């Protein structure tokens, strides 16, 4: 691509980041489901003892960063472990989004259900409707869908019983087609949780930028759920389902699949759709990943920590034509990991970092902030997965050393200057760089940040179709 900087480059008009604290749903994550099936009677008790309250989840500093009440960098000053530190001024709302409770999420699940699959106690739905009304995002007609009678196939042995955090029964989720392994109740629950959280993120986004839902023309879903039936498992498109739920009546959409780097693929595609003039307002949306709740819970239980993977996260980004803000999605600085790039760290980062920066004549140190895989290290480290963002920053710094831009003894400091601590729940594609775009956008607008580089990688090899990984990157900057 040789696009010159200028008015033709698209801009980022807004970013929303929402959380749903769902300790009751934690047991339906993939790992907890498998562990609970081993029939260790003490496990469910130990899990319940290690669940957080809604107040604890709201007061958790990384969650306050996610919705914009704190900067990522401020976490460096929070004493570890972060989960012990209760944010005195914590709020459920922030400039980028909000944290909703499980009570409210039951209502969103019901609202997302067009087939009478989700049956939830009426009293809980009344509570949900009240809480969702308070978010000021949903119309009366939409809230009516929360409390409408369910037609779920009660009593079906193929259904899944829903429990609240305290173990109380909440309701049921029915399966889809009989004998369809793509539509078991647990799979439909995952898909509905993705749809509901994604729609919440879209509503939040449109509210923040002051755009009517019917002005959105196209959506790109970048979540990892496989929506379909036995003949087209993963056929999609959850983006259009989210659009309908969020009232985007003038939009259609499609899903971009590339494991955890789908969000950056989708952002680049959204930019291209806008720059080409095909559409004016394109939303990139990543719904939450219910399967990843409690993914590292054994490590957390072993360390007697709360089960921190109790929160669903979703992100939505509005891409549009230049709006005078000066913020530009640099489609002329896109990095991609190709088939021939190879798997060595050096080759991956050359493809994703130095190659796109070279196209603009920028050095590694010319980028103010790198947003990498922003997994919260407090979640990953006790489970043996290391500090993911730190490893990424050290490799980018290593690349700068090899290019003679910094000295080897400056590697340590690179993270502090050009990086940030991980603050995002381990929701697969959600930590993939883009939550920082919410933080970068106001700073790019006010000029306190010149540019930020977004890098995502995807573990394609997990799908057994190839041994390769994937990666995508793009620069966002402010016109000088």
């Amino acid at each position, binding site marked *: 691509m040789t696009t010159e900087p200028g008015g033709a480059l698209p801009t980022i008009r807004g970013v929303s980041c929402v959380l749903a604290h769902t300790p009751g749903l934690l047991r339906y994550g993939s790992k907890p489901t498998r562990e609970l099936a081993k029939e260790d009677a003490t496990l469910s008790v130990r899990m319940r003892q290690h669940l957080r309250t809604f107040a604890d989840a709201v007061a958790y500093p990384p969650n306050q960063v996610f919705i914009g009440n704190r900067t990522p960098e401020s976490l460096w000053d929070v004493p570890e472990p972060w989960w012990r530190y209760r944010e005195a001024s914590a709020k459920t709302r922030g400039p980028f989004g909000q944290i909703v409770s499980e009570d409210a999420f039951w209502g969103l699940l019901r609202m997302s259900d067009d087939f009478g699959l989700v049956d939830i106690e009426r009293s809980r739905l009344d509570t949900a409707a009240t809480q969702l009304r308070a978010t000021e995002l949903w119309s009366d007609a939409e809230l009516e869908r929360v409390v409408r009678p369910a037609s779920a196939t009660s009593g079906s042995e193929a259904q899944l019983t829903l429990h609240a955090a305290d173990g109380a029964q909440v309701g049921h989720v029915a399966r889809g087609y009989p004998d369809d392994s793509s539509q078991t109740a647990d799979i439909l629950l995952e898909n509905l949780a993705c749809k509901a959280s994604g729609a919440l993120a879209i509503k939040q986004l449109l509210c923040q930028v002051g755009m009517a839902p019917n002005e959105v023309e196209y959506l790109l879903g970048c979540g990892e759920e496989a929506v379909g039936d036995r003949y087209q498992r993963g056929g999609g498109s959850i983006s259009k389902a989210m659009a309908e739920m969020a009232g985007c009546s003038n939009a259609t959409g499609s899903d971009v699949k590339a494991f955890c780097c789908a969000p950056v693929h989708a952002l680049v595609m959204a930019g291209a759709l806008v720059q080409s003039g095909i559409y004016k307002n394109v939303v990139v949306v990543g719904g939450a990943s219910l399967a990843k709740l409690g993914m590292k819970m054994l490590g957390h239980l072993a360390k007697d920590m709360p089960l921190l993977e109790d929160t669903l996260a979703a992100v939505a980004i509005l891409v549009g034509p230049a709006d005078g803000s000066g913020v530009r999605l640099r489609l002329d600085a896109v990095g991609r990991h190709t088939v021939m790039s190879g798997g*060595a*760290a*050096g*080759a991956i*980062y050359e493809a994703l970092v130095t190659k796109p920066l070279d196209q603009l004549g920028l050095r590694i140190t010319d980028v103010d902030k790198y947003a990498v895989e922003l997994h919260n290290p407090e979640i990953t480290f006790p489970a*043996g997965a*290391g*500090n993911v963002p730190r*490893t990424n920053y*050290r*490799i980018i*710094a*290593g*690349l700068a*050393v*090899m290019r003679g831009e910094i000295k*080897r003894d400056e*590697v340590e400091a690179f993270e502090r200057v050009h990086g940030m601590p991980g603050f995002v729940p381990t929701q697969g594609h959600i930590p993939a760089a883009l939550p920082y775009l919410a933080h970068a956008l106001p700073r790019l607008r006010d000029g306190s940040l010149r540019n930020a580089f977004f890098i995502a990688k995807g573990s394609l090899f997990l799908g057994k179709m190839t041994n390769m990984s994937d990666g995508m990157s793009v620069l966002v900057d402010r016109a000088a």
Partner: protein
Amino acid sequence: MILGAAEPVYVEMMAETVTAGDPTYTGPLAGVSLGLPVYHVTEPEVREITDASVYQDQIALSEIAMETDKIWESIRAVRAKNSAT
């Protein structure tokens, strides 16, 4: 046994696992002392026997990114204590 992990604490745990036995007692090597000679891929002993151009392509960047001082210190201690050779 050659390890490539980047975190000193994990390197130490893996080195223990393939020498004295799994220190976490969670895997099949719990209580099994293999006593294998264990090295980290960035250690001079490994580098000396690796083709220089391959090392440059595959390992050099990761080596700069790793805290090799800490990694070498912990793996050498485990090797001295547990490795048979």
